[in-house]
Every structure is written in C-alpha cells, then in structure tokens.
C-alpha cells in the first residue's frame, strides 16, 4: 500500500516535471524563437559588422579591422555626434522647462479637467509622426505664416526653416508629451501636506519648490528627460525635413551609410556609438533610481 503510493507519487512527479517542460516549450518556444531570429541575430549582426572592412563596391569583407573605430574619432564624424548630443540636450531642457509647470498644473486641476488636459497632451502624440513634423514645415517655411506675423510686428522676416532652431522645435514638439506624462505621474503622487508643512514652517514658495517638490519628483524628471533625449538623439527625420541638408545628426549619418555610401561596417559602428551613449544614460538612470 505505502509502496504503491510512493511509486505513483514518483510517477506523478516525473509526469508533472515533463508537463512543466512541455508547458515551457509550448508557451515560451515560439515567441522566444521569433525574438532570437528577428531581434537578437540582427542586433548581433550590427555589433559584428563593426570590426569588418567594407567591400570595394559596398557589401562587406570579412577581414577584422579597427579602422571603423578610428574613423569614428575623425573630427568630421565626432562633430556630428557631439552636435547631436547638443541638439538633443537643448530639446530635453526646453521640454523640461515647458513640461514641468504644465504637469504641475494638470496635477492640481479638478478630476474632470485633469482627464481632458491629459488627453489633450497625448492626442498630438498619437498622430502620425511625419504629419506632426510636416505641420511645422507649413508653419515655418519661406514667406510662411509665422514670418508673415513677425513681419507685421516689425521683426523679420527670418529664415526659420532649415536650421538648428527648427530642428530643436521639431524635437520638442515630437516628444513633449513623453516629458509631461512621467512628470505628471510623479507630481500627482506627491503628498500636498509636505508642501503645506514647508510653507507653514516659513519657507518661500521658491524654497519649497527647490527643497521639497523638485527632489521628491526627481524620478519623473529623470524618466521624462530620458524619454525625450533618447528618441531625439537618434532621430533622422526631424533633421532631414526641418534642418535641410546643412545640419545633420548622427541618425542621418547612419542612414546615409546604409542607403547612400553603402558602408555598412561604418554605419554599424556609428549605431554602436549611438547605443553606447544610450546605455550610459540608462545606467545613470538606474543609479539615480537606486539612490532615491
């Protein structure tokens, strides 16, 4: 009796082990296989190509070389990378300066208006990216509407389209909602009593903001900045459509290596540089989150 229970128990255990392995295969197998084939292998190809030489007529020669990396340090390319960092940083700072007060006020609106205000922030973001960038071409181009208005008040006309100002405007416009949402989430969580306590203890509104509100909403600030900076840094549509041919960013450089210059190894190396900057930023964010 006891013996048979032990035997059937062992059989059941092995059966359940087998069924668990089967479950893992059935559920995880297809998706994992797909992501390995269409995500990890492509990513490995990008990383792998960085050490090879380009073929004379495009393509790749499987001959290990470090020249792609030395070429990266060429002032010509370094300037583009640094320029992209600068433009993405300016766009992030402007989005933060506009986004913080907006998120702050939304968080203090009555419940009904809060939803309306939030939907109004997200609405442009859900429309096609190219359409949003195009809207700024309409507004900024040639003797366009903004220039007409500027001329009437005695300023301008200026060359508004095709410059760094237009690129920054386009980047802020494209990603501002991604700044406002995490800021709103962080400010909403903040206990209003903390602000009241600070005011009651005699702190000025500015003092309260910088020593209570801002430090307590730091996670929202960091996330928002990351959400704006990351897509801005690698963008190639905004610089192409709003920046004209003159000022290019690292995204344009990568695109051109693949579609025009046909230098895939160098294009991959530039993509690796792009990833390296983003990884450093993500690590900084993780570090900042752990400290909080």
């Amino acid at each position, binding site marked *: 009796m006891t013996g048979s229970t032990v035997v059937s128990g062992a059989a059941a255990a092995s059966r359940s082990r087998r069924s668990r392995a089967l479950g893992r295969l059935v559920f995880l197998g*297809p998706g994992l296989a797909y992501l390995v084939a269409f995500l990890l292998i492509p990513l490995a190809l990008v990383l792998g190509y960085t050490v090879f030489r380009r073929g004379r007529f495009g393509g790749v020669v499987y001959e290990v070389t470090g020249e792609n990396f030395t070429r990266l340090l060429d002032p010509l390319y370094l300037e583009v990378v640094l320029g992209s960092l600068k433009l993405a940083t300016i766009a992030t700072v402007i989005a933060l300066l506009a986004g913080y007060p907006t998120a702050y006020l939304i968080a203090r609106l009555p419940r009904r208006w809060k939803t309306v205000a939030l939907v109004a922030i997200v*609405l442009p973001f*859900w429309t096609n990216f190219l*359409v949003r960038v195009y809207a700024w071409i309409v507004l900024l181009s040639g003797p366009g509407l903004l220039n007409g208005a500027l001329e009437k008040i005695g300023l301008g006309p200026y060359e508004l389209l095709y410059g760094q100002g237009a690129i920054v405007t386009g980047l802020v416009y494209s990603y501002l909602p991604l700044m406002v949402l995490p800021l709103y989430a962080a400010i909403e969580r903040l206990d209003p009593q903390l602000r009241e306590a600070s005011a009651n203890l005699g702190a000025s509104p500015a003092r309260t903001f910088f020593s209570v509100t801002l430090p307590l909403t730091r996670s929202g600030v960091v996330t928002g900045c990351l959400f704006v900076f990351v897509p801005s840094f690698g963008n190639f549509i905004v610089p192409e459509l709003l920046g004209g041919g003159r000022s290019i960013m690292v995204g344009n450089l990568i695109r051109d290596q693949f579609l025009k210059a046909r230098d895939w190894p160098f294009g991959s190396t530039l993509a690796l540089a792009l990833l390296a900057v983003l990884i450093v930023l993500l690590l900084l964010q993780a570090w900042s989150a752990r400290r909080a």
Partner: protein
Amino acid sequence: MRKPRLLYVPFWATYLFLYAPIVVLVAMSFNSGGSPYSFDGFSLKWYGELAGNAEIRHGLVNTLIVAAGATALSTVLGTLLAVGMARHSRSKALDAIGVLPAVLPDLVLGIGLLMFYVWVKMELGLHSVLLAHAVFGTAFVAAVVRTRLAHADTSLEEASRDLGATPVTTFFRITLPQLAPGIAAGALLAFTLSVDEFVIAFFTSAPTEPTLPIVIYSMVRFGVTPEINALATVLLAVSFTVVIAAQRMTRLTESLS
C-alpha cells in the same frame, strides 16, 4: 490652496505650441488656392484630388496588410510569451529580451533587420516589413498581457486542474477568457504602432511596395502641397477619433466594473 498664477503662462503656452501647427495645417487643407501661404477661400477640392491619388491608395492598402498581418502574428506570439513568462519562467534575461524592442532605437532595429534579410538572402517586400513590425508588436502585446496576468486570479486555474481538466482545456477555458481584454488592448496597440511606423519600414520595405508613411515621407520631402495638407487632416481626424473613442471606452468599462 493658493493657485500659482504665474504657472498658467507656460501651461497655456504648451497647449498653444501643441495645437497651433495642427490648426494651421487643417485650415490650409480647405484652401481653394494652390499657395500654401495665403488663404484664398474655402474649398474641398484637395480632398477630391486626394481620393483620386493612386499612390496614396496603394500605400494605404499596403499599410493595412502589414498592420493586420503583424498584429495577428504579434498577438499569438505575445500572448503565449506573456503566459510563459508569468507561469513557466523566472528568468531575468528573458524579461530583458522582452522589453528590448521597446527600448531599442528604431533606427538600430531597422538597420539590423535589413542586414539580417540580406544575410539570409530574403527578398524585401511587404512580408519583410510585416515580420519586422511583429518584433515590437510581440513585445508590446506580451507587456500588456503580462500586466493583466499579474492581476488575474490563479486560484481559478488551480481549481480547473484539481477538477481534472487537462492543461490545454484549462488554458482555453480559464486562462484565455480571463486575459481577453488584455489581449484585445495589446492587439490594438500593435496595430496602431504598425500603421504609424516609418523608420523600420523605411529600411525593410521594397521600393515598389511602400507603406503609407513612406509615401507621405517621399511627398513631404518635396515641400508643402495642399494635397498633403488634406491627407494630414484625414489622418489627424482618424487618430483623434480613435484616441477619444478609446478614452471613452476605458471610462465606460471603469464605471461598469
């Protein structure tokens, strides 16, 4: 509580900044004249031209084929992956692979997939864009379904097993119906993202089979035309309607539950 009045300046400036270009764009699409800079009178003629544009229609059909296929594939793969990750694995590496498509710059995924297709000698076409879109689609469906799974009641699955149901029956009769709203939301997200996606499609499509965003891109590069204004207005109207309808629906389901 005292209202910080000064803050209303950047608050309203933000909304003005967000909507001024859209208002101008929509207004100019009804312009009877061909100049993008002066409004000569109301007309619907650009919408008529738009309806007759074969290139745009071709792009739209391609986009819908890609989005429908990518959504179907991502929904199946993503749902299985979500259940597998929640019930059959505790692997951190697997979690990381699951979020990778969402954090990886689209440019990097685009060039990587182009290199992959060339490497395996696959012809580019609508199928290559579809397979590419299913990568981030799968990740987003898996993420949405997983949040739903985290709130799902596991005791129902246990009860089903205890009552002698096979794992297959339990999955189809208990797990799947519980996850249905999450799966629908994930599929909708995958579809929307695919319809709008430009960068990855730009690298993985064949020149003869562009998706709608690629058609728009090639039109926009040649400057402002009233016809693009009309197309942009139609797309704005579609996405505004979808977002507001989705908002209404979530509020409705919230008030029902």
